[in-house]
């Protein structure tokens, strides 16, 4: 398990970050083209800059992995914990002495850290429940601090990096190598996969594929590639799908308490518009309902398409309003022009 292709050359000169300038480290991270590997793909340098600008005081290494069936981050923490922690220290070196925190959801990893101990880094254990790894939720559960949806956590003093990102930072700075591969849960098995590998080349063709976990990923074809943000490749469950039996379990597990089943009914109904639009938009795609569904309904795919539909509907309303305003304004302009013209003629006549 966890065999990794050895690399024969480095891309940059290895950097002794403890003796380096902050700008050098940032330049190296920028040159390596690092982006957040938890899924959103936010550029690492931009996040660090924002942290510097807003004087962020805390860096959190996010090892809270609550997507069902995905264990890539856990495996990374088990086997490469020192590298991840070094990455965390490197990120810390870019800010003014921030608190360094490692958040994990796995009891054994937490125990392993506590047994060993690490100066200057605190480890916090977070409950292994759906969506707990989402960064705003994580900050909420660690510091009971609520980040408004209109601001980034880095603007509120927190920087959250996925552990895989920190690992990549460590390799880019300490070893001088661009990210070439990443740890992926490949059909349930944690494996190092070279970036830009086509899914079709991994094997197991024929079945429907998903980029990301079965619950939260999106449908993918053989031509899709493994990227920095891919944490899992899984089979689709479309072949196991049955009709909804309205058991209501999706409603029960939804961390946002959304009426998932009622939304599904509106999505599947051929004639009615989706009236639960704010509920549809409030879904943050944690995939908890997909895991729970006994009929293997791809709820998340359906909700995503519903979001598009809701957005189109909103856009239609805005366009209608703007057209009406435009018509009124155009009529007003024409009227104004004719008045100006007639007054001009009047004045000319008076001459």
């Amino acid at each position, binding site marked *: 398990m966890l065999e990794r292709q050895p690399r024969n050359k480095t891309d940059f000169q290895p950097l002794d970050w403890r003796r380096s300038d902050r700008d050098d480290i940032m330049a190296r991270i920028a040159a390596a083209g690092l982006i957040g590997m938890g899924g959103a793909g936010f550029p690492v340098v931009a996040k660090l800059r924002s942290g510097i600008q807003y004087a962020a005081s805390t860096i959190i290494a996010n090892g809270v992995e609550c997507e069902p069936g995905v264990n890539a981050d856990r495996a990374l923490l088990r086997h490469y914990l020192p590298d991840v922690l070094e990455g965390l220290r490197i990120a810390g070196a870019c800010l003014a002495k921030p608190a360094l925190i490692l958040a994990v959801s796995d009891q054994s990893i937490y125990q392993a850290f506590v047994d060993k101990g690490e100066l200057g880094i605190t480890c916090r254990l977070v409950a292994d429940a759906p969506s707990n790894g989402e960064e705003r939720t994580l900050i909420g559960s660690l510091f009971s601090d609520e980040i408004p949806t209109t601001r980034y956590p880095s603007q509120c003093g927190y920087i959250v990096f996925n552990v895989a990102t920190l690992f990549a930072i460590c390799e880019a700075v300490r070893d001088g190598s661009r990210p070439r591969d990443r740890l992926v849960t490949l059909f349930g098995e944690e494996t190092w996969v070279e970036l830009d590998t086509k899914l079709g080349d991994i094997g197991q063709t024929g079945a429907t594929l998903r980029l990301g976990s079965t619950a939260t990923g999106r449908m993918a074809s053989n031509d899709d590639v493994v990227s920095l943000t891919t944490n899992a490749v899984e089979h689709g469950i479309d072949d196991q799908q049955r*009709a909804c039996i309205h058991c209501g379990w999706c409603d029960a597990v939804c961390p946002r308490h959304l009426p998932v089943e009622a939304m599904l*009914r509106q999505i*599947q*109904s*051929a*004639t*009615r518009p989706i009236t639960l639009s704010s509920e549809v938009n409030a879904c943050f795609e944690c995939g908890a309902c997909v895991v729970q569904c006994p009929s293997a309904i791809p709820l998340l795919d359906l909700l995503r398409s519903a979001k598009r539909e809701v957005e189109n509907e909103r856009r239609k309303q805005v366009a209608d309003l703007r057209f009406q305003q435009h018509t009124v304004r155009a009529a007003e302009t024409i009227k104004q022009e004719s008045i100006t013209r007639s007054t001009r003629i009047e004045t000319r006549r008076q001459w």
Partner: protein
Amino acid sequence: MAELFALFVGAALVNNFVLVQFLGLCPYVGTSKRLETAIPMSLATAFVMLLATVLTHILYTLVLIPLDLEYLRIIAFIFAIAAVVQMTELYVRQISPVLHQLLGIYLPLITSNCAILGLVLTVADLSLPQAMVYAVGGAFGFGLVLVVFASLRERLQSAAVPAAFRGAPVALLCAGFMALAFAGFLGMA
């Protein structure tokens, strides 16, 4: 009071026009595709039922019985019903063109809704308050099953009904099971 309540329950549930006496099936099937037609249709029918009951009752007791012309009641009642429907249609067209458009042909067809003729013939021999309670009960029962049936049919639109049953067959099947359910009130009141 208790007697009037029994009359109401009897007209609404036990002897439900649609599901037990099988009267008024045309609007029941015709306007139940959507809730937005079923609700106004049941209200319009209820309105016509109550008004027609009062009108025919007056006609019957004040004109036909004194003149010994009871045998004319069917034709006279249809007359009265047609007039009430005519007025309802004028009124609906006025207050909501959308509704008028949605109900389409079924609004004037209330005239030939046998539930209404059945109602006025049933209650012709009752006293006026009794007749009105019966009419309200019957209208309530009709509206209730119409709205319920429409909500079921709306749900069936998203169901994976097999091709052979799609549309009218499954609607009629559904109506049959509803009649089966209402058979539970058999013998009450």
